[in-house]
C-alpha cells in the first residue's frame, strides 16, 4: 500500500501526500507549485481557461498520450501515473512555441486571461491529430471560452499551426523514465487520509477490479470517482469534499470498448472521447451527440459509467441508450447482474445500484441499416451546454406502415423516459405528417416537465410535440436525393 500519488509536472517528479492529494490540479499548480500561468475562471469545467495537458500511459506502448483537460475539476488523487504539462513548459518569451507564435501574430489574445487555456488546447489538438481542418479546429476548441476576441483570430492562429509536427511534447519530455516508474507502482493500492476542519477524508485508489470491489463492499458509503467531471464541480462549489472516496482511475478492467456489427460494449470507465472515436463511422448519429457532450476537455476524462451514475434526466447519452434498449452490467464481489437501462432509473437521481456494486459496462444494440434513428439535443447554446430537451426516435417501417418505434425523451421528467404510449400509438399507422402530429399530442401526455433555468415547462412541451414532426420531415428530406 502506497501513501502517496506519483505525478510528474512538466517533467518534475512530485510525490503528492496528505492534504495536497485532495487539492484540485489547478490549486496544486497555482498554490503549491506557484505556477500561476494556469488561470481559473469557473471552477466547473465550463470555460477551459485552466486547460493543461494530461499525459497518460497508452497500454504498454512506450509513450504517453497527451490530451487537454480542465485542471479545475481534476483532483490530485485522480492523477497517479500521469504527466501534467502546463503553459510554463511550452515556449518562453524569447522562444515561443509554434502555437504561441501563431497566437501572437494573429492577435489571438486580448485580455489574455483565456489565452493559456487556448494555447494548451491547441497544443493538445496538434498532439492528437495531424492536418486539422476548420471543423476539427472549431470542435477541438469548443471547450474554451473567450469573451474578447470573437474567436476569429484564435481560429486563424489554430489554422496557422494546424500542420505542426506531432509529438512535440514527447520530444520535450522523454516518456520512458516516467513510464518505468509508473509501471513499478501499477499493481499497488494507494490510500491517503487527511484531516481538514476536524473532518477526516480518505481516498482509496485500487489498482484492479477485484480490490475495487472489495473496497466498495467494505465502504458502501464511499463516493465513487472516475472522471470526476460532475463530482468535481460539486466539491468546488459546495466546499464539501466527500469523506470517503474510491477512485477508479487505475482499474484497467473497467476500460474497454468493443464495437461489433450489431452491438457496442463499453466499459464503465471508458471516456467519451474514446466512444467518440469508435462511433464516428459506425454510429454517426450517436457520434454527433457525443461531439456535443461537454467540451473536448470533459470528454477526455468524463466516463460512460459516470454519465449513467450521475443520473441526470438531461444526460446527453441516455436517450440513445434508452431507445436502443441498452443493458447495464453491474458487478460486485458476489457476482454480476444485468439490468435493462429502461428499468435502471426509478426517480430523480435514483437508480438500481445496490451497496457493494459498481457499474461494469453497458451493452448497446446498434441500429440496423434499415432503421431510422435520429437523436436530438436542444440547448441554449449549441456546444458546451446542458440540454434543455433531448430525444431519441427510432422507427422501423414496413412499407408505409410503422412496424416498430422506440422513443425516448430527456429533461422532461425526473428521469429519461421511454414514451410507451406514443410508441404504441404509432404501431401499424402510416408514417406521414398526420400520424406524427397526432403522436406529438400523445407524447406530451407522457411527460411531466418543469420550468427551470434551461427552459419553461411550456417550451419543453412544444419541443416534445414538434420533435416527432421534425423527425418525419428529416426522414423525408433524407430520402430525397440531393
Amino acid at each position, binding site marked *: 500500500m502506497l501513501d502517496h500519488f506519483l505525478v510528474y509536472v512538466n517533467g518534475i517528479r512530485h510525490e503528492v501526500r496528505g492534504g495536497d492529494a485532495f487539492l484540485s490540479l489547478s490549486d496544486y499548480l497555482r498554490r503549491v507549485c506557484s505556477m*500561476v*500561468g*494556469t*488561470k481559473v*475562471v*469557473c471552477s*466547473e469545467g*465550463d*470555460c477551459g*481557461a485552466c486547460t493543461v495537458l494530461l499525459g497518460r500511459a497508452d497500454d504498454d506502448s512506450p509513450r504517453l498520450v497527451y490530451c487537454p483537460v480542465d485542471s479545475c475539476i481534476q483532483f490530485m488523487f485522480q492523477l497517479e501515473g500521469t504527466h501534467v504539462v*502546463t*503553459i510554463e513548459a*511550452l*515556449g*518562453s*518569451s524569447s522562444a*515561443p512555441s509554434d502555437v*504561441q507564435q501563431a497566437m*501572437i*501574430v494573429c*492577435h489571438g*489574445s*486580448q*485580455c*489574455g*486571461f*483565456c*489565452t*493559456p487555456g487556448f*494555447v494548451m488546447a491547441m497544443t493538445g489538438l496538434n498532439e492528437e491529430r495531424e492536418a486539422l481542418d476548420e471543423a476539427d479546429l*472549431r470542435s477541438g476548441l*469548443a471547450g474554451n*471560452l473567450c*469573451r*474578447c*476576441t*470573437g*474567436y476569429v483570430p484564435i*481560429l486563424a492562429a489554430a489554422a496557422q499551426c494546424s500542420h505542426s509536427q506531432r509529438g512535440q511534447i514527447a520530444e520535450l519530455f522523454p516518456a520512458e523514465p516516467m513510464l518505468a516508474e509508473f509501471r513499478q507502482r501499477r499493481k499497488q493500492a494507494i490510500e491517503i487520509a487527511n484531516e481538514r*476542519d476536524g473532518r477526516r477524508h480518505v481516498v482509496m485508489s485500487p489498482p484492479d477490479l477485484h480490490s475495487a470491489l472489495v473496497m466498495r463492499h467494505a465502504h458502501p458509503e464511499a463516493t465513487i470517482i472516475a472522471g470526476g467531471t460532475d463530482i468535481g*464541480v460539486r466539491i468546488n462549489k459546495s*466546499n464539501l469534499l466527500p469523506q470517503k472516496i474510491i477512485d477508479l482511475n487505475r482499474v484497467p478492467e473497467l476500460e474497454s470498448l468493443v464495437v461489433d456489427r450489431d452491438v457496442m460494449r463499453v466499459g464503465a470507465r471508458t471516456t467519451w472521447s474514446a466512444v467518440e472515436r469508435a462511433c464516428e463511422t459506425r454510429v454517426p448519429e450517436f457520434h454527433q451527440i457525443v461531439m456535443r457532450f461537454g467540451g473536448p476537455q470533459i470528454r477526455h476524462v468524463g466516463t460512460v459509467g459516470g454519465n449513467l451514475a450521475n443520473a441526470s434526466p438531461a444526460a446527453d447519452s441516455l436517450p440513445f441508450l434508452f431507445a436502443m434498449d441498452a443493458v447495464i452490467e453491474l458487478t460486485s464481489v458476489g457476482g454480476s447482474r444485468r439490468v435493462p437501462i429502461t428499468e435502471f432509473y426509478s426517480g430523480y437521481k435514483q437508480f438500481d445500484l445496490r451497496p457493494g456494486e459498481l457499474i461494469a459496462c453497458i451493452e448497446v444494440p446498434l441500429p440496423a441499416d434499415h432503421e431510422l434513428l435520429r437523436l436530438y439535443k436542444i440547448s*441554449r*447554446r*449549441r*456546444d*458546451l451546454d*446542458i440540454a*434543455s430537451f433531448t430525444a431519441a426516435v427510432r422507427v422501423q417501417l414496413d412499407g408505409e406502415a410503422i412496424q416498430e418505434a422506440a422513443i425516448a425523451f430527456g429533461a422532461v421528467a425526473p428521469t429519461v423516459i421511454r414514451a410507451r404510449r406514443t410508441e404504441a400509438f404509432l404501431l401499424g399507422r402510416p408514417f406521414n405528417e398526420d400520424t406524427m*402530429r397526432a403522436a406529438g399530442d400523445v407524447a406530451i401526455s407522457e411527460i411531466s416537465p418543469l420550468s*427551470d*433555468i434551461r427552459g419553461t415547462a411550456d*417550451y419543453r412541451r*412544444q*419541443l416534445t*410535440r414538434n420533435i416527432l414532426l*421534425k423527425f418525419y*420531415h*428529416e426522414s*423525408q428530406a433524407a430520402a430525397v436525393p440531393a
Partner: protein
Amino acid sequence: MPSLGKPVPHDSAVGHVTGQAPYIDDLPTLAGELCVGFVGSPVAAGRMTRVDTGAALAVPGVVGCFKASDVPGKNSFGLVVVDEPFLADRDVLYVGQPVVVVAATSPAALATARQKVRIECQESEPILDLTESIRRQKFLGPRRRIARGDVAANLNTAPHRLDGVFTTGGQEHFYLESQAAIAYPGEQGQMVVHSSTQNPTEIQAVVAEMLGIGQHEVVCICKRMGGAFGGKESQAAIPAMMAALVAHKTGRPARVVYSKDDDMRVTGKRHAYRCEWEAGFDDAGRIQAVRIAFYSNGGASTDLSLAIMERTLLHADNCYFLPYVELTGQVCFTNLPSNTAFRGFGGPQAMATIENILESIAEHLKIDAFDVRQRNLYGGANSSSSTPKNLHSEDQERIVTPYGQRVEQNHLPEIFATLAAQSQYRRRRVEVAHFNVSSPLFVRGLAMTGVKFGISFTTKFLNQGNALVNVFTDGTIQVSTGATEMGQGVNVKIRQLVADEFGVDLHRVVVMPTSTEKNNNTSPTAASAGTDLNGAAALRACRTIKRRLRRFAALRLADSQAGLAPSSGHIEFRNDQVFDRRRPSEQIPFSQLCDEARRERIDLGARGFYATPGVDFNRETGQGTPFFYFTQGAAVAEVQIDRFTGELTVPRVDLLIDIGRSINPGVDRGQIVGGFIQGLGWVTTEALVYDARGNLLTHSPTTYKIPAVTDVPEVFHVATFDSRNRVPTVYRSKAVGEPPLMLAISVWAAAKNALSYVAPGTPNDLQLPATGEEILRCLTALGAKRCPLQSCSPAAPLDSHALNS
C-alpha cells in the same frame, strides 16, 4: 520604421501566450497576507435582525470579520449619486449584497468561515420586475426627455401607425478575470491598492473616503485586467474597499478574488429595458413621428444608470432621421445588484428598439426592411417630398439629431449602399425567399442594420486625459497615462503613437502600469475613448519634450562655418536618429542626444493634458453637441431557424465599419470581431434567469451561455470603410471599442425577418434575446407548429419580400 498603421501585436501578447503576464491573483503572496471574502444578504429585500460571526471567528485561521460598523470613514459611495452602501448596515437591497467581510490566513479557512456566518433578516416583498417597479413608481433619478416638434399631431396625421412594447434582456459581462484587488498597508495609514479596475481614480477616491483619509494617502495601481467591458468601471469599488478595509484593520496585505459565481450573483449587468413605442409613417415606410418611452432596470442603486439612460435617448435615432420625436427615459429601482456600464452603455437597447420599429414597419407595409432603412437614413433621402414642410430648412436635409447636433461626416448612405452591394443583399433576398418556400425544416431571414455611435462621454468633464512621459539617457521611454489595459490594446496604440512621435523603434517605449501616483484625476477607461483621450495627452507630453530637445539639437547640429544657423524648425526625429533637415547626413543617435541633453540640464520628462474640444450637452433641455464625432457602420446577417425547435444558426455575416485611419489594424479588427460576437451573445443565447425571490440562477458558464467558438458565423466578412476622417483625433483614428457590438443587432433583426416568412401577414413580437425558446414561442404563436408547410407549398407565389427586392 514607423509603427503607426501596422498590426503590431498586443503589448502583452508574449506574456499572455506564455502565461507570464500576471493578473491580480497571480501576484506573489506576501508573508502574512490574508485571503478576503464576504458574506452577503440571503434575501433580496428586508431588514437584518441578527448578524452572527461568532462561529466564523472560531474557525482556525480566521483573523477577522468586519461589518458596516467597522468602516472608519464613509460607508456609502456612488459615481453620480452617493446612494450605494459598501456594506449593508440595516436594510438589504439585493441577494448577496455584502454584509460581512471575512479575512483568513488560507483559502480553506476563508471558505469554511464564510459558511459559518449567520445573517438573519426580516424579509419583505422584493421588486424584481420592471413592470412592478413602474406600477409602484419606484424610480431612480428624474425622467429624462429629448423631443422635437408636435409628435401627437404628426402621429395622428401619419398614413400608417404601429405601436408595441419591446423588451431587451440584461447581459452579464463575463470578463474572465473576476473582480479582484489586493491592498498593501503603508506607513501612517497610507494604502496601496492593486485593483482590476477601469477606473483607478475612482478606486483611490472611494478607498480614501471609506478609510477616512485623504486621496493623497491612497495609490491605486492597475497593470491589466482580464476583461472588463464596463463591468469594472464602477463595480471594482466594493472588492477594492474590502481589501483596503482588511488591510487597514489588520495591518496585513489583503487579497480578495471573487469566485465566478459570486461575481455573477452580486455585480451589476447590462440593464434590461422595457420600451413602449408608437410610430407613424408613410406608404414608403418613412417615419413621420415616433414616441418611445424607455424604462431601464437600474437595480438597487443609481450607479451609472442615469448616464446610461442618457446615452439611450441619444441613440434612439441610431442612423435614422426622426422628424417628430419624443424620447423619454426613466431608470427603475429593483431589488437586484445595481446594473452598470456595459460596452454600448445604453446604446444597444436604444438601437435595437428603433431597428425593431423599422423591421415592424417593413413587415406591415410588405416592403424589404432594407429599403425602409435606407429611406430613413440621415441624409439618405434628398427628395424630401414626405418631409413635413414646416420643419426648419436644415431639417429638410434630414441631418439633425433629435438633440440638435448635426450628423457631420455622414457616411451612412454610402455605407449602406456599399455593404448592400458587397454582401449581394438583393440577390440573397431572393434566394432566402425561394429557400423559405421550399424548405420544410428551416426558415431563413436576412437583415441589414446600422450603427451610428456617438463618441465622447456625455458627461462633459470626463472628456479629459493626462499622460506622463519620461525619457531616459539611453533613449528609452516610459509612458504612463490614465488609460487602463483590459485587452482592448490601448497600451500598444499609445506605444506606437509615442515611438513614432520620437521617431524611435517600438522596443524603446514601454507603457507603465496605470497608477494614480503618476496620473491623477483621470477618467475611467470607457466610452471607447481610451486612445482618443490618453493617446492625445501622451502626444502632447512627447511634443513638450521634443520642443526642448529640438532647441538643444538645433544648437548641437548648427554649423556656423557651413552657414547652418541653429533652427529648431528643421530638426527631425527619425529612425532613432536626430538631424537637421538641411543637412541630413549629420545625425545624432536619439540616445546620445538624450544623454547629452541631461548633461545640459534639459528636462526629459513631461506631462501632457488633453480635453476634447467643442462637446457640450444640456441634459435638462435635451439639446447640445454631446459628441465629438460618430463611429458609423452596418452589418448584414443571415440566419437560419429550425421550424420545429426554434434553434438559430448564423451562417453568414458581412459588416462594414468606418473607424477612420487605424492606428493598429490588428487590434482594431479584434475589437470589431470581438464586439460583434459579444453582441451576438446579447441578442441570442445570453439570458439571465432569476427566481421569484431575486436569486440569480444563471450564475456560472454552465447556465449562462456566452457565444462559443462554434457560434461564430461560418462566413464572416469584416471590412472597414475607407474615408478621410476630418475630425482632429489622434492619427485621425476613430473609436472602435463599443460600436461593433451593436452591429450584431442585425442578427436579431434577421431572426425577426425569418419569422415574417412563417405566416406572411401575421406580425410577430420577437423580443430580445432571441433564444431558441423565444423563437419557438413566436413560431408556435404564428401557428407554425400546426401547419409548417401550409404557407410554403412550392406552388404558392413568392411573397412580397421577394417581389419588392
